């Protein structure tokens, strides 16, 4: 009888171990997920391939771009988030193609393609080592996702084990939403000029 119980106990233990292993095995998406480097708004974050410093975050209901021939108004059902910062490559020239806003509910909002032609947009800037470059990013998010957001910036959205900067957006509050933000081209080091209305 005790031999039978020992056998049964062995089977139950094996089943429990296997069940535990099945539940805790990370999936392919987790194994190849980007390597995060944590940072905060207003502080320079240095990874291995690039360094980024997010200086200012502005919120607005509409964005007006002043082009060469005409002005365009961009409305949204949520809020526009316009992020200004400085980025630098550390060892080799690269372009940061992926920027996402991770909302508190876990949803990731990618950079808005509607405003991709703005001067100084992150995905269009080639970052060279030794040359900090001003960069601009624009996101469209629901108003409920403004507080507690995190900026995720990486070279590519799909490359496995890419380095990803996670910048906590502390101090970004919905009370500061402007009614409109005007983006115009500027001469000089920073190719854009933002003014709130």
């Amino acid at each position, binding site marked *: 009888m005790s031999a039978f119980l020992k056998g049964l106990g062995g089977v139950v233990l094996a089943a429990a171990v296997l069940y535990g292993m099945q539940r805790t095995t990370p999936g392919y998406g987790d194994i190849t997920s980007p390597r995060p480097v944590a940072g905060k708004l207003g502080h320079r974050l240095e990874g291995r391939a690039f360094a980024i410093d997010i200086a200012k975050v502005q919120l607005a209901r509409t964005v007006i771009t002043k082009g060469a021939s005409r002005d365009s108004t961009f409305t949204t059902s949520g809020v526009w988030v316009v992020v200004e910062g400085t980025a630098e490559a550390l060892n080799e020239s690269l372009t940061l193609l992926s920027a996402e806003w991770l909302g508190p509910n876990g949803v990731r909002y990618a950079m808005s393609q*509607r405003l991709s032609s703005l001067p100084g947009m992150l995905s269009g800037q080639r970052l060279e080592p030794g040359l900090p470059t001003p960069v601009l990013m624009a996101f469209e998010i629901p108003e409920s996702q403004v507080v507690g957001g995190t900026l995720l910036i990486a070279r590519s959205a799909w490359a496995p084990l890419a380095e990803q900067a996670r910048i906590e957006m502390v101090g970004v509050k919905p009370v500061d939403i402007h009614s409109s933000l005007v983006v115009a081209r500027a001469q000089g080091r920073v190719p854009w000029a933002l003014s709130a209305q």
Partner: protein
Amino acid sequence: MSAEQRLTWRRRLFAFVVASVGAAAATAISFAMTVYEAAHPKPVPIAAPGQPIDTGRWTITFRDARTGSLPPTGIKPSTPKKLVMVEFDLDNRSATTSNVFSRLFAIEPPIANLPPPAFYLARDKSVAGGLQPDMPERMIAVWEWPAAVPVPEQLRLKVATQIHKQRDNLYGAPGWFDRDPAAFVTLAVGTSP
């Protein structure tokens, strides 16, 4: 062979037959089920314009259809074209920004030589990029109708669904996969200036 040897042979043969009966039964049942499902497909529901259709990744609500010669951008094309435009509301229900809506619906029955449609954002009147989650947008799909085919009075669209699998069958990676169509929608095609 001695009597004992024959007994063990018979016992092993018996065990073999029992095991293979189980496997054969499983194969036969699964084959029969596949054949039955293929012969009796589930009827695809008909949806009306204005009714939200849940396709897994997107929730789509068709508004109207019209023909015209001017695309939503308002810029006259260089050569005169017949355009068929379908206006709809699209809501991204996934957890990331997505621009994979080109195969969300198709004209049923398919028209020969019809190029894939271009999608415009009604808000900007320009070509649509990715749609943000939880932020529904009105969009316009524009087909360049071939000159030889007459413009239809009624447009029947088949709406496809997708499911999200946390672990797919090849890499164990998360992804969206096509499933059975969600609904058929028939829209009356009006004319626009």
